[in-house]
């Protein structure tokens, strides 16, 4: 509940600054006008379609990233050869923010619903793959040896030791994938457009309607935080049998 108090204090501080400095609406709107704006976009029927326009490609891209990324990551982790081959590419793409590839995508795919989904997919794929790969590669050797001592073959070892061991890593990959996918989504929305909350933010900024911009930004923040918190909880649940604490 300190969070709530803190938030209220923050609002009070905000309002005070607006009153005290008499700052322009276009630079810092008062909390009140933001709330009004919020009501407007809800009433005008802009808010909901924007949300849908954002979440739809997000989920689609994420799902495909998981379907492709998890098996691929597990595979690369299992094979020394595949790892060797894929390593430089994985590394190169991981070190580079996906944002860098955005202009290329924008030019490539023209404008269409698919652009967003594809960029979400690409953004999310890498963290998912990387986490899965890492999970497989850090499996405790002694567990594998124990399974083998009972005569388990490659497939059994994989199914009964590697996969359960890797689940927390997979969940971690999902969490990162969601975060990066979200970013990929926003890049498109904030540059090219194609609907969605991000586009609305930029649009209201262009109209100097800062209150509305704040309103949409708040929606973005809430959505982002909600998704990320959800995925963190999922990760914590998947990791419940692990003893170590991770950052």
């Amino acid at each position, binding site marked *: 509940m300190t969070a709530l108090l803190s938030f209220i204090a923050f609002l009070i501080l905000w309002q005070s600054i607006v009153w005290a400095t008499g700052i322009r609406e276009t630079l810092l709107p008062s909390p009140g006008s933001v709330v009004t704006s919020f009501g407007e976009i809800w009433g005008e029927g802009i808010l909901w379609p924007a949300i849908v326009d954002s979440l739809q490609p997000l989920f689609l891209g994420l799902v495909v990233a998981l379907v492709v990324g998890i098996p691929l990551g597990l595979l690369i982790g299992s094979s020394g050869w595949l790892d*060797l081959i894929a390593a430089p590419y994985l590394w190169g793409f991981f070190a580079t923010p996906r944002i860098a590839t955005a202009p290329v995508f924008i030019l490539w795919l023209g404008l269409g619903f698919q652009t967003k989904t594809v960029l979400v997919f690409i953004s999310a794929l890498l963290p998912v793959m990387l986490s899965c790969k890492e999970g497989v590669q850090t499996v405790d050797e002694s567990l594998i040896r124990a399974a083998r001592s009972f005569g388990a073959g490659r497939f059994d070892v994989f199914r009964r030791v590697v996969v359960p061991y890797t689940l927390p890593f997979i969940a971690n990959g999902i969490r990162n994938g969601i975060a990066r996918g979200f970013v990929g989504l926003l890049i498109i929305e904030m540059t090219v457009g194609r609907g969605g909350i991000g586009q609305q933010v930029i649009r209201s900024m262009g109209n100097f309607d800062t209150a509305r911009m704040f309103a949409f930004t708040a929606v973005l923040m809430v959505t982002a935080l909600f998704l990320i918190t959800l995925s963190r909880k999922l990760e914590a649940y998947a990791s419940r049998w692990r003893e170590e604490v991770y*950052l």
Partner: protein
Amino acid sequence: MSATAESTAPAPKRFKGRKQFTRKQRIIATVINLVLFCFLWEYGVKFFEIKPIILPPFSAVVAEIPEMYEEGILFSNLFFSLRIYLTGMLFSIILSIPLGLLLGGVKVLDRIISPYLWLIYTTPLLILMPLILLWVGINDTARVLLVFISAVPAIVVVVMEGVKTVDNSLLRAAKSFGARKGTLFRKVIFPATVPFIATGVKMGVSRGLIGLFVGELFSSAKGIGYIIELAGKVFNMPRVYAMLFMFILFSITMVGGAQYLERRFSSWRSQASM
């Protein structure tokens, strides 16, 4: 009796496990890999008749680099981006390390400031970017600020955790020798936190890169993003790719360097840091 028995019995199933490669093997393999990649790119494009507007051949992309050099835009823009990045990173490191140490050590501050820190850390930068552009304008300061804002939370969070996890038994041992708070900090907490600082800086480096490129994308006056945007407008794809490639190289260098530093400073830790 001993040697012959093996040949008559059925061959034992050897469970090789994952193949381990030596460092040298990895390096050689990587080089071959990349060379192969370049070849495939070059000839694959011609073979599959991919339109150069989608994917230009490797040679065209590489050719752009000397061309940009001729035009005098290659290094100037690279350095511009580099300057912005390093300025932002410098400020963020200077602020974050003491801030992280402080927040990790002083519980009250931690409780007050942490939620906001966490908020900034978790919120994708792109959400905050319009606000920054609104208040600071579309200029170089904004870009430095973006790098700064991306890097700071990452570094602070890691350093904070580092301070908190300093082994209590170490502290107790030092205190039993009569160490006072200042000495305690200097001789026990700080050295123990160094690996975390190194890790934090590493995370800050990659986050900062994101901040850099967001800045490049939206407020490009000069820099890598500027070239890409310019080239994109006239559909000079080879140039777009060439600059992109430069950016990738840049990123790899930065993150690689940070990782190296991280390992150097974490050498006494038995557990691998992240």
